[in-house]
């Protein structure tokens, strides 16, 4: 049976589990095995966006307006599509500048201004207080409902109870304690809170599972699926509007815009998305995984809202509590407890991260500037890290107690979603200075101050004060009739602009005034040196890997002073370690060897910025370094020079790529030349070898004839015949070598004309027939076409045919040798084949016979030709666009086939240019 003690125990156990998880993740990070480096964990930590507002409030809004809650989640999906431009740039800037919060980011962009950082902090704290109040309301409300199980009893109005009997007060204190344990164990705010992020990611899983469990129970256990719920709602009549589109495109648009801005600009979202980011790869996955999470967590919102309306029809049950009261109504105590834990996850995740982010801002941008003034810009020579921790811890308590105060003052007048939207509208005021700061160099500190102030004041007037008035804390007259009865100044119909809901109305006026003031004031004056420097670092953040640092600081400093200064805020050991590491990166042995140049001063400043914020860090560094201020002209010169260097660098990279391409081409050409040289050597070697064989024979027989005059006549005639034959072979060889050389060098004369292949075949067969008959063979022919016209050189084709026929005559079988010639047409080509019934050619040798001086094994033992006939024939056929190939199986003869493209009837002869 559920009851107060059990619920409290389970709550403590759950928070203890989170703490254990965070401790484990921190330990792993210390061992170098980070669990939050995973892009999935990063996307889950971004889901801290889904708070008690999503968990309980979306159902409440869906029960009142159907799908009207969706723009709050479609907006982030829209924004996520832009993260690869926007968030990537913010992350890169924050890593190089050691940005610790959104206030630090904006202050740093506009010349490291204390005033601007302070204003952003005030807006963030005041703006987010309603949001924290919302979480307190949700946790205390769900606790109060659950302890009355199995009764469905809604909690009483908080204002009617004394503070010490109000659950929300104890929830606030407890959360403050846990936040201190989670977030302020280390000082350097720019270091990632590994344990915290791991716990937040775990909470995201828990709240998703819990809400899904309720959704499945409601949809598939209480009802027969979605269709059944929709049917019942349709029958109920009064629920039909919930199934129709919500009215007002203005609401759809303004809520989408608001949530698209809030998903990055809320302090806690900036904390997890930018400060806790560990690699740009994480952003790429979050672009789709985070919207998918939002889709899943909202999947059952509408069914739960419809069932709640059906089940509690006529009863006074707040729709914001349906997620919890439906399981209670149906006596599902464990599901109710799990649902409560899911809600606790959603609320605690938000409160912990939000207050850590706000405490960093309060410490660095509100308290530190005050302390610096008190110390007259010279910090006392003691360890200040404990003081900083104390400030942050106090800030956590103060923020949570302020949130609780808002809950007591105004929390009961609004539904959860309405409270959240007030906060969204407040942080939306950061958008113009953030976006302008990232993409426009002309934005100035004064412009940013003017824009933010104007937007914030309009937000207070049109949204915050009306929320107080609606809760009865302020008189409601000024809402209805305007201050002093001036109708035009009515807060929610300013200057007569009516017909919009309060959020759209506030967004229109506040962002309008904000943007106008920012642009007008910024344009009225040129940025100063510091603003120009920072503008360049921010706007050009994605253009170069290394920030423009050197040259933008001029002065004198002592490295020992810089180490001592950072030691006061970070602890001496830590400071020495960081400087030693930095020295190692600059290829020096120890921190003491570092030159006191602009880069070292910048390093000390960014190191300090991680602890006390960029604006305070600048003041602190100035206290130990004698800086010579740079004028705007000098800064512009340096930046021009830097951009010129970048341009030269780009040009050099381009030239380098061109050079690399040229080198690759030269290497390829060189390899080809070496191959050709090798072929030439082979060719020369083959030619000389082929020439030597007949010459040796001629010389031997000539010497015999010369030395032995008595040799008989018959023998003498035989020797002379051999000499003549070898001389003819030599002549043929020389002619063929010359012929091949001409063809290959492109100097051959080609007489190109329409030639009738039938005629060529007839002539070549007539010329070769006797040779075949003399060797005891027979010749047959098969011509299957009537007109066989090709465009080629008649003499060259004759040369090919005679070569193929003489080869066939040489290699046909010694007994019953036969040679067959046939001509056929295949599509647009003509095929001429010459087949013999000789020994054939092994498959491995077939490609070689087209190489110069290559003959088959039988041929090489007793050369019967020059070994150039087939290479020349192939060159000729390929010149006319054809192919020459061989098919053979050992023992079954060989078939040589050449194919030429067919053309029309013979025409007038033409002469090709020499190739």
């Amino acid at each position, binding site marked *: 049976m559920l009851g107060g003690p059990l619920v409290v125990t389970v709550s403590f156990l759950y928070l203890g589990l989170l703490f254990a998880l965070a401790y484990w993740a921190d330990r792993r990070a210390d061992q170098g095995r980070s669990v939050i480096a995973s892009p999935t964990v990063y996307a889950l930590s971004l889901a801290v966006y889904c708070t008690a507002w999503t968990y309980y409030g979306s159902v409440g809004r869906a029960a009142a307006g*159907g*799908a009207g809650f*969706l723009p709050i989640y*479609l907006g982030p*999906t*829209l924004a*996520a*599509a*832009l993260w*690869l*431009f926007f968030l990537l740039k913010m992350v890169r800037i924050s890593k190089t500048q050691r940005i610790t919060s959104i206030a630090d980011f904006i202050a740093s962009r506009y010349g490291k201004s204390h005033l601007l950082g302070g204003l952003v902090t005030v807006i963030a704290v005041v703006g987010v207080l309603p949001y924290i109040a919302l979480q307190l309301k949700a946790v205390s409300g769900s606790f109060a409902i659950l302890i009355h199980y199995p009764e469905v009893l809604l909690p009483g109005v908080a204002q009617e109870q004394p503070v010490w009997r109000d659950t929300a007060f104890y929830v606030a204190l407890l959360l403050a304690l846990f936040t201190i344990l989670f977030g302020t164990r280390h000082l350097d705010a720019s270091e990632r809170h590994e344990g915290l992020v791991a716990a937040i990611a775990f909470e995201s899983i828990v709240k998703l599972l819990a809400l899904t469990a309720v959704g499945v129970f409601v949809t598939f256990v209480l009802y027969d699926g*979605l269709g059944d719920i*929709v049917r019942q709602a349709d029958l109920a009549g009064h629920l039909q509007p*919930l*199934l*129709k*589109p919500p009215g007002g*495109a203005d609401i*759809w*648009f303004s809520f*989408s815009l608001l949530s698209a801005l809030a998903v990055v600009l809320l302090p806690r979202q900036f904390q997890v998305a930018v400060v806790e980011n560990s*690699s*740009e*790869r994480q952003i*790429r*996955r979050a*672009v*789709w*995984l985070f*919207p*998918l999470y939002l*889709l899943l967590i*909202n*999947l059952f919102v*509408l069914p739960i809202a419809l069932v709640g309306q059906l089940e509690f029809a006529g009863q006074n049950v707040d729709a914001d509590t349906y997620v919890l009261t439906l399981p209670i109504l149906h006596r599902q105590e464990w599901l109710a407890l799990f649902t409560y834990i899911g809600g606790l996850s959603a609320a605690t995740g938000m409160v912990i991260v939000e207050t850590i982010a706000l405490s960093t801002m309060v410490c660095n941008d509100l308290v530190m500037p005050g302390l610096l003034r008190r110390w007259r810009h010279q910090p006392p020579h003691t360890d200040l890290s404990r003081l900083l921790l104390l400030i942050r811890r106090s800030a956590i308590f103060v923020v949570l107690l302020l949130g609780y105060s808002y809950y007591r003052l105004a929390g009961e007048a609004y539904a959860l979603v309405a409270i959240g939207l007030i906060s969204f509208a407040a942080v939306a005021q950061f958008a113009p200075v953030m976006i302008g700061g990232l993409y426009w160099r002309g934005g100035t500190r004064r412009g940013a101050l003017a824009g933010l102030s104007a937007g914030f004041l309009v937000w207070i007037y049109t949204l915050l004060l009306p929320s107080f008035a609606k809760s009865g804390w302020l008189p409601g007259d000024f809402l209805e009739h305007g201050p002093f009865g001036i109708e035009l100044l009515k807060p929610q119909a300013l200057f007569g602009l009516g017909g919009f809901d309060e959020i759209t109305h506030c967004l229109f006026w506040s962002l309008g005034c904000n943007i106008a003031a920012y642009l007008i004031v910024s344009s009225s004056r040129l940025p100063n040196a510091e603003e120009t420097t920072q503008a360049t670092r921010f706007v050009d953040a994605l253009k170069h890997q290394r920030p423009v640092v050197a040259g933008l600081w001029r002065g004198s400093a002592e490295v020992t002073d810089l180490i001592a200064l950072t030691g006061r805020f970070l602890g001496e050991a830590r400071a020495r370690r960081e400087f030693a590491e930095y020295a190692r990166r600059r290829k020096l042995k120890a921190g003491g060897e570092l030159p006191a140049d602009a880069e070292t001063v910048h390093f000390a400043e960014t190191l300090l910025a991680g602890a006390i914020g960029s604006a305070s860090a600048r003041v602190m560094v100035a206290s130990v370094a004698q800086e010579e201020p740079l004028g705007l002209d000098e800064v512009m010169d340096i930046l021009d020079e830097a951009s010129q260097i970048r341009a030269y660098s780009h040009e050099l990279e381009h030239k380098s790529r061109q050079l690399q391409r040229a080198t690759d081409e030269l290497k390829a050409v060189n390899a080809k030349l070496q191959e050709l040289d090798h072929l030439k050597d082979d060719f020369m070697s083959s030619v000389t070898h082929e020439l030597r064989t007949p010459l040796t024979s001629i010389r031997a027989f000539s010497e015999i004839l010369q030395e032995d005059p008595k040799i008989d006549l018959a023998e003498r005639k035989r020797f002379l015949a051999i000499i003549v034959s070898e001389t003819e072979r030599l002549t043929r060889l020389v002619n063929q070598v010359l012929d091949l050389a001409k063809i290959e060098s492109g100097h051959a004369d080609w007489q190109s004309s329409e030639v009738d292949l039938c005629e060529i075949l007839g002539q070549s067969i007539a010329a070769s027939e006797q040779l075949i008959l003399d060797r005891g063979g027979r010749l047959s022919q098969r011509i299957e076409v009537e007109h066989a016209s090709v465009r080629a050189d008649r003499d060259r084709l004759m040369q090919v045919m005679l070569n193929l026929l003489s080869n066939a005559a040489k290699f046909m079988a010694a007994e019953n040798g036969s040679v067959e010639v046939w001509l056929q047409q295949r599509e647009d080509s003509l095929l001429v084949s010459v087949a013999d019934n000789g020994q054939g050619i092994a498959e491995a040798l077939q490609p070689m016979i087209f190489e110069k001086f290559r003959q088959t094994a039988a041929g090489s033992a007793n050369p019967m030709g020059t070994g150039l006939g087939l290479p020349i024939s192939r060159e000729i056929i390929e010149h006319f666009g054809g192919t020459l190939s061989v098919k053979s199986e050992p023992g079954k003869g060989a078939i040589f086939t050449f194919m030429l493209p067919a053309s029309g009837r013979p025409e007038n002869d033409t002469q090709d240019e020499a190739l």
Partner: protein
Amino acid sequence: MPRRAEPGRQNESTLLLLIFVLFLFASPLTSWWSSDQHFWFLPYLLWLLVILIGAWLHYRFRRHDP
């Protein structure tokens, strides 16, 4: 098979996705899908479609961080 990212093409694809999302959720097309009798689940389907395209682009242009 994932390809190495080409920053220019990746930026173009991301912008195209954004235009597609705007076209779906912030154009006169909104009134077309919201007037359907099955209005209440259509936004979820369109939403899922956008997420799937985003995931597809992610894997198409995935590159390994150093």
